[in-house]
């Protein structure tokens, strides 16, 4: 084995003389087995139109620090899975493999395991959906796949989807890759505003736009943290009737309320016009990737064909795991344990925000779920502030990701689901200092009136004047190593 091979090529360059004429000539013709494509991607011209929005972003880059323990992350939406009885779940899954491997390690039905679909109907009954049949349920790889299937089945490029402002970022990604146009509908502390929905429907109708469906998260909204009130649920169903609107009800958090019993689902009020998306990610485990779609039979048929084309069938082992968990473990009590844990974290978050945030900052007060939606003082931009937050070792999600139209700069989403209460308090403390520093910066620059600046001379003509204002920091050489 050669530990440090000598490079014949480099060593033969004349020392210190890369300035010599050889620099270009010597290398220009140098053969290389697979020369790089000038754009680094020989397939750059072939990608489908739906990939055009897929680019590297600073936001993602800045997020990479959250994996370091020094950083308090109020960014991710990770459930507190360690609150599960891990030993019991572990031996349960072990038994599924050792005792039932012939089934659990095999392909299964595209629609999903029948036993699990029965148990899913029991879960949905907690939110008033008592007429669902297991035959109307399609098990999916998380409700995210369910949303993708529904979108594939209904949406052509250019179709309009109505969605709350803001909306779940993962839904916007699905809609973007379907090349849909998203029309946002306003919400307030009581959830989606029916008048705004009607206005949007009338406007779309007037424009000749085809609205394929309304996408809504009625309970403990991601990212807004608000819940659709009872009267508004009725109003939205009435509008669906009036305007022949299909509603996609995405409900991953509905059972995680802190103050009251689960509210009656939109689907419970109208089985014809509502397609319901459910998930075990927040009530059990997101790593198992088990969710479902409840849809009228004709739709279900198309969903099953679509899912077979995508994944053949949902994973057997994790479906059995969920069904066995629901059969043998105290899952209702476990959901209460989760809710109690999240309530304590929500309290830590809201109390710290009240105590520490500078004037002009506002936020929602969720009574369930994972998220607080925070509005910064006037003029501040959560994305532009993000590097300062990384320096301060606190992470949040800038609001713009939750809008399809590029708005939402003044908002951020804070998640209290994952950090311990003490960490949440520390995170909010850091965040408050970041906002204060940003306010200070704005007070310096916001009042600048560039209209009063003297006439600007064009750049190149002013060269040679030797304009140097020295560096602001020291450039002292210290001893070498």
């Amino acid at each position, binding site marked *: 084995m050669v530990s440090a091979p000598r*490079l014949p090529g480099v060593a033969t360059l004349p020392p210190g003389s890369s300035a010599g004429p050889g620099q270009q000539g010597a290398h220009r013709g140098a053969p290389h087995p697979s020369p790089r494509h000038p*754009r680094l991607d020989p397939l750059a011209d072939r990608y489908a139109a739906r990939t055009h929005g897929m680019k590297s972003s600073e936001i993602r880059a800045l997020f990479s620090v959250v994996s370091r323990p020094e950083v308090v992350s109020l960014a991710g939406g990770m459930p507190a899975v360690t609150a599960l009885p891990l030993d019991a779940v572990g031996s349960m899954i072990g038994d599924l493999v050792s005792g039932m491997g012939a089934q659990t390690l095999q392909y299964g039905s595209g629609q999903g395991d029948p036993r699990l679909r029965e148990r899913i109907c029991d879960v949905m009954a907690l939110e008033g959906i008592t007429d669902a049949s297991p035959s109307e349920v399609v098990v999916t790889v998380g409700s995210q796949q369910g949303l993708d299937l529904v979108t594939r089945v209904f949406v052509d490029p250019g179709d309009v989807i109505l969605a709350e402002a803001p909306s779940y970022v993962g839904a916007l990604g699905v809609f973007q890759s379907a090349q849909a146009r998203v029309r946002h509908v306003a919400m307030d502390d009581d959830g989606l505003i029916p008048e705004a929905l009607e206005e949007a429907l009338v406007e779309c109708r007037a424009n000749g736009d085809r609205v394929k469906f309304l996408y809504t998260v009625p309970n403990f909204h991601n990212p807004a943290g608000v819940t659709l009130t009872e009267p508004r649920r009725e109003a939205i169903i009435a509008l669906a009737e009036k305007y022949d609107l299909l509603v996609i009800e995405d409900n991953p958090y509905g059972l995680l309320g802190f103050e009251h019993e689960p509210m009656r689902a939109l689907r419970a009020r109208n089985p014809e016009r509502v397609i319901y998306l459910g998930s075990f990610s927040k009530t059990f485990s997101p790593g198992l990737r088990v969710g479902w779609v409840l849809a009228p039979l004709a739709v279900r048929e198309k969903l099953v064909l679509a899912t077979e084309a995508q994944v053949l069938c949902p994973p057997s082992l994790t479906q059995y795991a969920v069904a066995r968990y629901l059969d043998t473990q105290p899952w209702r009590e476990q959901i209460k344990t989760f809710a109690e844990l999240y309530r304590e974290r929500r309290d830590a978050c809201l109390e710290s925000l009240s105590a520490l945030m500078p004037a002009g900052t506002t936020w929602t007060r969720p009574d369930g779920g994972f998220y607080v939606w925070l509005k910064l003082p006037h003029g501040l931009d959560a994305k532009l502030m993000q590097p300062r937050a990384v320096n301060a070792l606190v992470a949040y999600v800038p609001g713009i990701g939750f809008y399809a139209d590029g708005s939402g700069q003044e908002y951020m989403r804070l998640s209290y689901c994952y950090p311990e209460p003490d960490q949440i308090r520390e995170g909010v403390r850091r965040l408050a200092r970041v906002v204060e520093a940003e306010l200070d910066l704005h007070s310096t620059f916001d009042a600048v009136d560039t209209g009063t600046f003297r006439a600007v001379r064009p750049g190149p003509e002013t060269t040679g004047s030797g304009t140097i204002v020295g560096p602001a920091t020291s450039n002292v050489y210290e001893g*070498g190593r």
Partner: protein
Amino acid sequence: MTESAAAPARTPEEEHPLRAVVLAGGLTFEREVSLSSGTQVVEELSRAGLDAELRDADAELLPGLAAAPADAVFIALHGATGEDGALRAVLDLAGLPYVGSPAAACRLAWDKPAAKSVVRSAGLTTPDWVALPHSTFRELGAGTVLDLMVARLGLPLMVKPASGGSALGVQKISRVEDLPAAMVSCFAYGDTVMVERFVEGVEVALAVVDLGDGPQALPAVEIAPESGVFDYTSRYTPGLTEYHAPARIPDDVAARAAALAVRVHEVLGLADLSRTDAMITPDGEIHFLEVNVSPGLTETSMFPMAVEAAGHDLGDVIAQLLAGRAGRAR
């Protein structure tokens, strides 16, 4: 394998594979880029036959290195700590050899305005600039100071953090009304902002390597972003920028660019490797923009393209640098 303890006669091939620790990650904006660089380097070194391990610069690092010493360390950290000299100073304290520039030289190169001063004093060309902390604007009045800047430096202007890489926080400002907002967003990266006269031309990356015979420039890599601005998205999304290595420039210009990069490497006291970013004007004038002591080594980075354009293998080059620092024959 000889059992003789008379070590000097042994060649590297007879020793155990060189054990290298590659540092990547860190607690900076550039963590993701660094992890990508570090992973790439470990793969290349393993292919070159070294025993290479990736480690983050965290509280486990020094105890880990004490327990399992490396022959030499390669720093693929970008951003503060890795590039500002701090981590290198600690490695010096610990007596651990590493590839790259010494701590003090890094401190200087990290401070872009300071590095520009040194480079200009050495007679090289660099666009006019001014670097100021937030407090100066607050105390003297932001409007007055910005007005002076624009009057003196003209438009367009480049606004960039005084330290840091990966193009994070860098903006080109063509309209004076966009300047205050650009200052606000740039100050989010650090307390000092550098405003620089914009130079129109071809942007090139000039890699320099010193394998023991003095610093050598590798072929210039020309950067042509589709959007016109080589920002973060253009830099890290394959397909959005065209790279030409060697650059499509006349031989005499390429030679002068290479000489500039070597000179920058020397006057700043850099060692082993560096990447100078420069702008070549239509009349062939070469402007120094900044220098990186820990150049990006990702799949879309310019340093590896330059190595490849020179007909070399990145893993071999880094292996040689490590061997040199480990005190083995190169």
